[in-house]
């Protein structure tokens, strides 16, 4: 049947489609393209320049450099743990710092108070964190409870257990030899800095180059699309909670090794830096998208900003103001980037 056509002049696909392309064309578009990726890095450089000018003898020193790059390992592991769940679209895992504190308490308690060897204790500490991740995953993915509620509750619960285990005190006295796994100096920086670099690079590779990473990105972007494309969505979501727990555990072991002990009352102070870094990361490298390398840069951006302010004579409250302010600014920028589209 050749259907009669009255108005059909069989126009070939015409003009309006050529309008939008994926690549910036004009100079201004290129500038926006570039600014949206690297503006935070430019601010970072500017910030260093200002501090250097304000406190010339103090800021631009090897000591400052070492403080900034040698002190953020816990944050690197925690942000990567948060990224695990954020990348698959579980927006807010509030339990991350508490799970970290839980592991960081188990290890010295077992060693110092119960006389365990450090390695079995470290194993149990990591295992404990993984168990919390499994419980989070079961409740959120299998049962379908709201992520915020589950992780807020679980975080508070394990935080409380950590306080009980430690009798509200700092538990310290780990053998100094154990500290070597975190503090051994390589090129002026503790080896744990390089653990962080390897972790971030590995995570970035996983997301960008492996089938699993592709699946993770699709689950984060659109669960229904992923499900209908044959991806085991729930398995990936569950796995992300377990991986998040494991990273908290490993990060805790390394941090405790560096510190020689742990005070579980300090866990809560990590929450804001973790979120600030992860959200700041969405304004770096891959604008509007959660990404490990952007997050990594974000961590050191924040550390630089705070150390500089402290060197200028401002006190401890400044870190709250700075982290809080950056979190709000970063989320706003990221929201605007998403809305504008590429």
């Amino acid at each position, binding site marked *: 049947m050749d259907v*009669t056509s009255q108005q*059909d002049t069989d*126009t*070939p696909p015409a003009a*309006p489609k050529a309008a*939008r392309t994926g690549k910036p064309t004009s100079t201004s578009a290129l500038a926006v393209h570039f600014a949206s990726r690297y503006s935070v890095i430019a601010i970072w450089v500017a910030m260093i320049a200002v501090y250097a000018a304000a406190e010339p003898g103090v800021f631009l020193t090897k000591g400052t450099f070492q403080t900034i790059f040698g002190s953020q390992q816990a944050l690197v592991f925690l942000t990567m743990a948060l990224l695990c769940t954020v990348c698959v679209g579980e927006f807010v895992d509030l339990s991350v710092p508490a799970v970290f504190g839980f592991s960081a308490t188990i290890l010295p308690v077992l060693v110092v108070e119960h006389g365990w060897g450090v390695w079995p204790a470290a194993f149990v500490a990591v295992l404990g964190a993984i168990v919390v991740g499994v419980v989070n995953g079961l409740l959120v993915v299998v049962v379908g409870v709201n992520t915020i509620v589950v992780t807020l509750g679980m975080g508070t619960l394990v935080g409380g257990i950590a306080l009980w285990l430690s009798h509200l005190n700092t538990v310290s006295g780990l053998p100094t030899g154990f500290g070597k796994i975190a503090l051994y100096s390589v090129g002026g920086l503790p080896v744990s800095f390089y653990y962080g670099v390897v972790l971030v690079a590995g995570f970035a590779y996983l997301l960008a180059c492996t089938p699993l990473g592709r699946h993770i990105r*699709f689950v984060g972007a659109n669960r229904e699309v992923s499900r209908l494309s044959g991806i085991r969505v729930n398995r990936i979501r569950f796995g992300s909670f377990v991986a998040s727990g494991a990273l908290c555990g490993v990060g805790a072991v390394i941090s405790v090794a560096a510190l020689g002990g742990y005070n579980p009352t300090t866990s809560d102070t990590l929450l804001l830096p973790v979120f600030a870094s992860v959200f700041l990361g969405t304004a770096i490298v891959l604008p509007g998208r959660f990404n490990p390398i952007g997050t990594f840069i974000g961590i050191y951006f924040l550390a630089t900003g705070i150390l500089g302010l402290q060197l200028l004579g401002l006190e401890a409250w400044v870190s709250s103001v700075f982290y809080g302010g950056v979190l709000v600014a970063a989320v706003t920028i990221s929201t605007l980037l998403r809305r504008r589209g590429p």
Partner: protein
Amino acid sequence: MTNEAHTVSAGSRTDPPDTAPLHRLEVAELSKAFGSTRALREVHLRIAPGELHGLVGQNGCGKSTLVKILTGVYAPDPGASIAVDGRQLALPVRPMQQREAGVSVVHQNSGLVDDLTVWENVRLGHYRAGRLSRRINRREEQRATERVLARLDRPLDVGRQVGQLSAEDRAVVAIARAVQDHRPGGGLIVFDESTRALGRSARARFFELVRSLVDEGTSVLLISHQLEEVVEATDRVTVLRDGAVVEAGLRTSEVDEVSLTRMMLGRHLVTHGRVGSQVRDKVVASVRGLAVGPVTGLDLDIRRGEILGLTGLIGSGFVETAEALAGARPADVGTLSVHGRDLALDRKRGCTEEFVDAGVAFVPERRLEAGVAGELSVADNLTLPRVRSRGGRLRTGSAWQSEETAAMIAKLDIRPPHPQAPVHTLSGGNQQKVLLGKWLAGAPNLLVLHEPTQAVDVGARHDIIDAIREAARDGCGIVLASIDPVDLAVLCDRVLVFRDGRVAKELSGELEQDAIVHAVFGDDTKPQEEGQSD
């Protein structure tokens, strides 16, 4: 009836404004675009006081967008005007203003809350709180409800739960809610597919009630898929096609279902004629004992190269059948064997991995919600179903991906041809091509398509239809679930028309659009000129 005075023809839109009070509702220059899709184009609609006006058109023609603009869900594009009884409404329409103007809408499912009583439903949003206590005065609300029901001459026990009422009484409750603010003889009620749940005799009683309101002077806009009831009940009818008014205020006495159908379809959509059938003997997929939604005990065989159409009204089961075949919706019971692999269709787990592995591909209707991830790139989306099978565990591998992406961009003429462009920056038609290409690149055994040409432009449609035919030529079995008779007529070898969960009719051979439309919309009681059915 008072609908004389203006036999508004499609051309006479420049009437002087002094005729305004003659219209209960006057919509002019109403346009609405969603991104690159124009849902409504300069729509004009005039409804006289005391008129029952029908609005018909195919799915996706813009009817529901129009209702959503009237109720303030969407803001129309600048330049539109909506006037009630000659008074312009501020746009976008605010709910309070709409109520004051006397415009009320009865939605598809009547918009009733089953757990609440009759009076609670009727008075919802109208409750008057006590001045000091802020309490609802139950007695007074009940009396107000009784008054409205008495006015409709359909007394009901106002304390009963709505969930326990018959479909007919539920319709009465919905109407009572709609008319309570109207002064007698005023106001406009929009019925948006609200007669769907009514049986034949209930429907007759429903229209009796509507007619009595109309005779008092209330105006009614009836939006319906049931052309029969539109022809029987309305005074005039407006036909929408592709977001534009093609016939404005036709006297219903001058039309019948066939002529309405023709107006709804138009002829301009046609891109190309049929090609010869490419069906081979070998069955590639067979379904046994499928039960899903309203469908029970359905068996199907799809041959290699065959394009099997599934169609019917919404709720007839054809969509559910297609989704169950693709593994997208768990069926109650049923099996699918594809290319020698047996798959259970009654799955508890939602994952479609084994369907994908068996070569079952699904192009869903809502492409940005279920088909492609808009924020990710064309290349990522195109190759997604195969990164697991073709990539290594540690490496997706870039060579096959760029090769496959380039091949699909060329084959489907995806524009712009940038593999790294995020899919949401593409036009609707090109997004649809990415969605289709994502599956065609894997050479599926069974390809299930749901409205594959919905909201795409003419050029993209051409490319998509060609690609579907090519897949059939390569031996893929294809299931096309669609309400678009043009697609069905142009592409299909066989069309199954569903009604109430059964295959009511099977059309094959040289398919005519009109025959398909009649089979879908028409009634069994009026078998007319369907030469093709066998």
